[in-house]
């Protein structure tokens, strides 16, 4: 009865130390919109990368059957030939080229030695009409907003004669209006017989457009639902929740003191789009010995909030007040933040955290080099002291390495995370921001990181933990703030917090915003 266009059978994909996909099977019917949802790190994007040939055939186990034929894609080019086109979350457009040039990039019209520009721009205009974008195809991409760029991506996919369109978080950076336009467009294409797979965090959007939903968690499929069976926001949320939280988190008796850190009316604007508020009037408090969680979906502004607090290392036009132990402080550079005993452990340990080609020692001491200066000398580094300190933190963190001189790029993700944590503990912070501290590391290493966090707060320090993994927040935090679209959508204590409540808060705040926007327009 069902006409299956795509079937993925028993896909298993492992990275060093992590099993990203574990025996995942997925089937998509022709002409439907199939949604895949799940938390960050659930394996959604990995699954789509397997499908589109980003991870070539042979680097995973299992088989892919598309249009009745088994597939062995070696690259994106192979999958595109068969009509599977993926649009990644980070748009792959060249800003300095025009819409037309971008649309036919790698698919140039005319011959190899003579590009037919009339054909290029003529066709581009037709596809733009199809996606409802009223722009001249000579316009440069950099002059378009993100929403319109997303439409160009779709037009580009159409130009490739797409049969199965995969969209990875297409609305993550779009506002409500643009999102709705995009979803309606997909519904329109569906009528014409196109199949789409959409990966999204936004449950209301899935409920709006999807015909069937696959819910993933920890690299495995948890549940599949179809429209015939009936689903709504609530059933999706329920399906996403429901994991055994016991024994995954080390026990701790909270010993919470007075407020040590307070933020009032914190507003931050986007560094390039100066009129976009990334953090909107946020006020929070942090107590001594507390682990405070910040929950929210991708793009809610959590990382941006933490980084802007850490010496204005993100954003422009920052306003608001910060108080440490009741006294107002102004921290305008990471250096000042470190001096005020703040530390920020980045979510992007390779890009923003570690100096990969350097050994553990120099990475450990980088955040406060003056602590290892020889007595009585102003700037001379005491190598022996440095090595001693590095060894101390290797031991304290339980980092597995061949020696303190090991280059950090050769360490596993979990051990890199420990080096990074050690680096920031070396700065002896009172207030520690941990941004996705367990991202991309295996379960065992996660547990060790949790234990370290407990021992940190037992010493009277405070932690603000940002995480996209709700169970982790629920298991570790004394209190959780829920962020949505740059605002605090609510606050929950450890006892009252559940995944349903967090998701509901996010949903409600998004709905509230839609209404507000509607009235404004």
């Amino acid at each position, binding site marked *: 009865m069902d006409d299956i266009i795509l079937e993925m059978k028993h896909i298993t994909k492992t990275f060093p130390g992590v099993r990203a996909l574990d025996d995942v099977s997925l089937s998509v019917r022709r002409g439907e919109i199939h949604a895949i949802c799940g938390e960050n790190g659930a394996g959604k994007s990995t699954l789509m990368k397997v499908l589109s040939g980003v991870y070539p055939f042979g680097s995973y186990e299992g088989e892919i059957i598309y249009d009745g034929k088994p597939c062995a894609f070696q690259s994106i080019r192979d999958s595109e030939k068969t009509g599977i086109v993926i649009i990644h979350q980070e748009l792959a457009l060249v800003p300095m080229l025009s819409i037309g040039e971008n649309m036919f990039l790698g698919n140039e019209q005319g011959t190899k030695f003579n590009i037919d520009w009339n054909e290029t721009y003529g066709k581009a205009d037709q596809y733009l009409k199809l996606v409802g974008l009223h722009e001249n195809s000579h316009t440069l991409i950099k002059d378009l907003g993100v929403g319109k760029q997303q439409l160009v991506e779709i037009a580009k996919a159409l130009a490739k004669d797409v049969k199965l369109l995969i969209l990875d978080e297409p609305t993550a950076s779009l506002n409500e209006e643009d999102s709705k336009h995009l979803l309606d467009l997909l519904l329109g294409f569906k009528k014409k017989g196109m199949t789409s797979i959409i990966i999204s965090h936004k449950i209301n959007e899935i409920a709006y457009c999807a015909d069937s939903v696959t819910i993933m968690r920890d690299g495995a499929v948890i549940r599949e639902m179809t429209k015939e069976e009936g689903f709504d926001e609530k059933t999706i949320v329920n399906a996403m929740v429901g994991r055994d939280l016991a024994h995954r988190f080390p026990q701790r008796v909270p010993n919470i003191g007075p407020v040590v850190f307070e933020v009032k009316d914190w507003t931050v604007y986007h560094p390039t789009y100066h009129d976009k508020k990334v953090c909107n009037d946020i006020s929070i408090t942090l107590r001594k010995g507390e682990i405070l969680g910040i929950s929210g979906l991708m793009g809610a502004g959590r990382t941006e909030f933490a980084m802007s607090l*850490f*010496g204005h*290392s993100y954003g422009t036009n920052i306003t608001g007040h910060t108080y440490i132990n009741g006294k107002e402080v102004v921290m305008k*550079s*990471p*250096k000042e*933040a*470190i001096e005020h005993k703040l530390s*920020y452990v*980045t979510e992007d340990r390779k*890009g*923003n*955290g*570690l*100096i*990969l*080609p*350097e*050994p553990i*020692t*120099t990475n450990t001491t*980088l*955040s*406060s*080099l*003056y602590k290892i*200066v020889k007595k009585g000398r102003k*700037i*001379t*580094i005491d*190598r*022996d002291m440095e*090595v001693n300190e590095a060894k101390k933190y290797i031991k304290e963190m339980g980092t597995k390495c061949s020696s303190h*001189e090991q*280059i950090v790029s050769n360490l596993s993700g979990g051990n890199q995370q420990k080096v990074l944590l050690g*680096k920031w503990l070396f700065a002896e912070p009172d207030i520690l921001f941990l941004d996705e501290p367990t991202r991309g590391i295996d379960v065992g290493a996660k547990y060790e990181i949790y234990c370290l966090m407990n021992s940190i707060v037992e010493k009277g320090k405070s932690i603000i933990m940002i995480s996209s993994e709700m169970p982790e927040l629920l298991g570790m935090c004394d209190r959780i703030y829920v962020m949505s679209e740059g605002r605090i959508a609510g606050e929950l204590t450890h006892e009252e917090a559940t995944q349903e409540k967090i998701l509901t808060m996010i949903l409600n705040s998004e709905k509230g915003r839609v209404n507000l926007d509607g009235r404004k327009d």
Partner: protein
Amino acid sequence: MEGKIEKKSGIRTNAILLALVSVMVLFEILIRAEGKGSLFAPANISNLINQNAYVVILAVGMLLCILTGGNIDLSVGSIVCLVGAVAGTLIVNMGMNIYLAIIICLLFGILLGAWQGYWIAYVRIPPFIVTLAGMLLFRGLANVILNGLTISPFPENYLRLFTSYIPESDNDALQMTVSLSVAGVICILYVISEIASRKDKIRKGYATESSGAMITKTVLICAFAMAFATLLGLHKGLPIVLVWLAVIIFVYGYFTNRTVPGRYFYAMGGNEKAAVLSGIDTNKVLFFAYTNMAFLSAIAALVCCARFNSATPSAGTSYEMDAIGSCFIGGASAYGGSGTVGGAIVGALLMGVLNNGMSILGIDANWQKAVKGLVLLAAVIFDVLSKKRRKND
């Protein structure tokens, strides 16, 4: 000498040192076969030092720029010319006190560097563009000052500062004695510091190399120093410019290897974002790199004026390329974050020996250039391939 830098690029520096030695031996054989004397003739060794002093000075400054992220400074040669022109005008034409003139020249160099550094570090205009502009601007200004003419000769007391020998005496025996005793003192100091560091390590319980290896190393280094001193002693004694070089090498070697601000250069080149989040003001680091480069260029200018006894409109032409080449031959990464002062100096010496050896052999100047180009490429290819191999292991 433990620690990150030696460990990381130790193999590389040793390899380039080995290349230097083999090139020297090769030239020695060729030169002897042609019956044109010897590369190791005392006069030639002295000549090698005087000829290449400027490259060594510039390579040290260029290394700091390259460390910040593979950034280069193209204006070096033009700054050498411009500062030389100012020095010539002040000292020769105006007859100013030479020490005052030297201070003015150095300050002027710092000013030129600060000008470029500001645009590079705080406005973040790509260094390539700023220093390309500087290259044209400063060369033009120099020619305006010189009016297209050469200024010479410089007074005797100025020349003595950079081109004389220690001791300033014609007595051969005295020259040898002074030369050997200076080397002797340095050797003794070296041995003492090695022993002290070893004792300190043992006391604190750190790993030390075997005593046999240490003795071999020390004996080799001392023997080399004494042999070198003997050669210098046979020809007028220690060139004074060698003393200046030693000071510069020591200061910058220590700075990059042992100090907090020195560490910032490696951090910035390794991962600038991580460096910023670690509280490092990378703008300041970049500003310092370019200001310092111009400062060292000014020193090189003073040395060159003395060596050629003139300030000419064409002085310093393509010096930037010699400096950049030395750093890359010496193992600095083209993306920044790794490289040592020692490596840059060995690189400079290798270039110098190539020049000198080929000149003695009477090889055409155009061919010399071609050979230098191939050597530079070969050095970088070697670097890239050895890194790849290490990754695959």
